[in-house]
């Protein structure tokens, strides 16, 4: 095909395409899409999203179990009379008396206080988060 033929072809197709009409989807097309979108939005809004990632939770669990184990280390599981002869109280006394055990180290005490402070700082942040995600929806 030379240039003239190409031009002729182009003009011909232009003319033909000019006559084409737009197709229309079904009358409830927009409604169907909107209902799907609302459904997706609803799913997204009620979907459970943990505040902390799983790895952090696992780490905290390990720390908790480790700390409990450390504090109770005087009453090891090898001791068969552990629960048998009234030493359960001693076990819990030791667990609950952990601040006294650690009081020898000032750094540890400051660390605990600092942790408490950070926890308190989080409270307004958490409140705002819950307000936004639940109450205002």
């Amino acid at each position: 095909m030379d240039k003239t033929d190409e031009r002729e072809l182009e003009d011909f197709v232009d003319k033909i395409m000019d006559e084409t009409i737009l197709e229309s989807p079904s009358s409830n097309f927009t409604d169907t899409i909107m209902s799907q979108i609302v459904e997706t939005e609803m799913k997204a809004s009620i979907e459970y999203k943990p505040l902390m990632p799983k790895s952090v939770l696992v780490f905290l669990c390990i720390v908790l179990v480790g700390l409990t184990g450390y504090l109770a280390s005087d009453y090891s599981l090898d001791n068969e009379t552990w629960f048998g002869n009234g030493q359960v109280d001693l076990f819990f006394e030791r667990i609950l008396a952990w601040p006294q055990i650690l009081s020898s180290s000032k750094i540890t005490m400051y660390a605990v206080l600092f942790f408490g402070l950070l926890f308190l700082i989080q409270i307004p942040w958490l409140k705002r988060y819950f307000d936004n995600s639940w109450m205002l929806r």
Partner: protein
Amino acid sequence: MTTVFWLRLHFYDKKRKLCNLGVCFGVQCAMTTNKETNLIQKIRDGNTHAFSELVDAYKNLVYTLTYRMLGSREEAEEVSQDTFIKIFKSLPHFKGDSKLSTWIYKVAYNTCLDRIKQNKRNKTFVDIDHVKDVAFVSMNNALDKMLQEERKELIKRCLNLLPSNDVGLLTLFYFEEQNLAEMEKTLDIPVSTIKVQLFRARKKFAKVLEENLEKEIFQNYG
């Protein structure tokens, strides 16, 4: 620049009896309009009603493209719906560096290609290696003699007989008002390649039209 685009759209609107494309008025060419930007912002802010405006504005264009590429009304409706859901989900990532319509066509075109790939089928194969002389004058005369409705029906049938890529390309070319730069953005193909593909698509269309026109004439007068 702004006025030209407005006039072209207005003309297109009237000629094709398009749905309300008011979102495109008052544009800075090749970018999103202020109205479009406002609409997008509303949707991003969670106003789902604003999205229904966008759907109403583009549904016929998207549906026409998908119907021509897929050749089935049911499938086209399904793919068009998927397209709009994708658009809704991706709208927060739309940067506005192309026209909103171009971006919408891109999503629609790619969703169609995905569906075609998924179905592992293409509509037809049209051999154009042996097409040399197409008698445009006689074809024009024959088409002119046909009733308008018959002619439109024949053109629609022939478009449906074209391979998906070709009919998609031709449709986009006219939707994008023959703007190759916009098509480049839609298809992610260089302009030079688009020109070659368009030429081949036109050739195939002319061939299919010629064959079907002969059949039509033979049936009516033979």
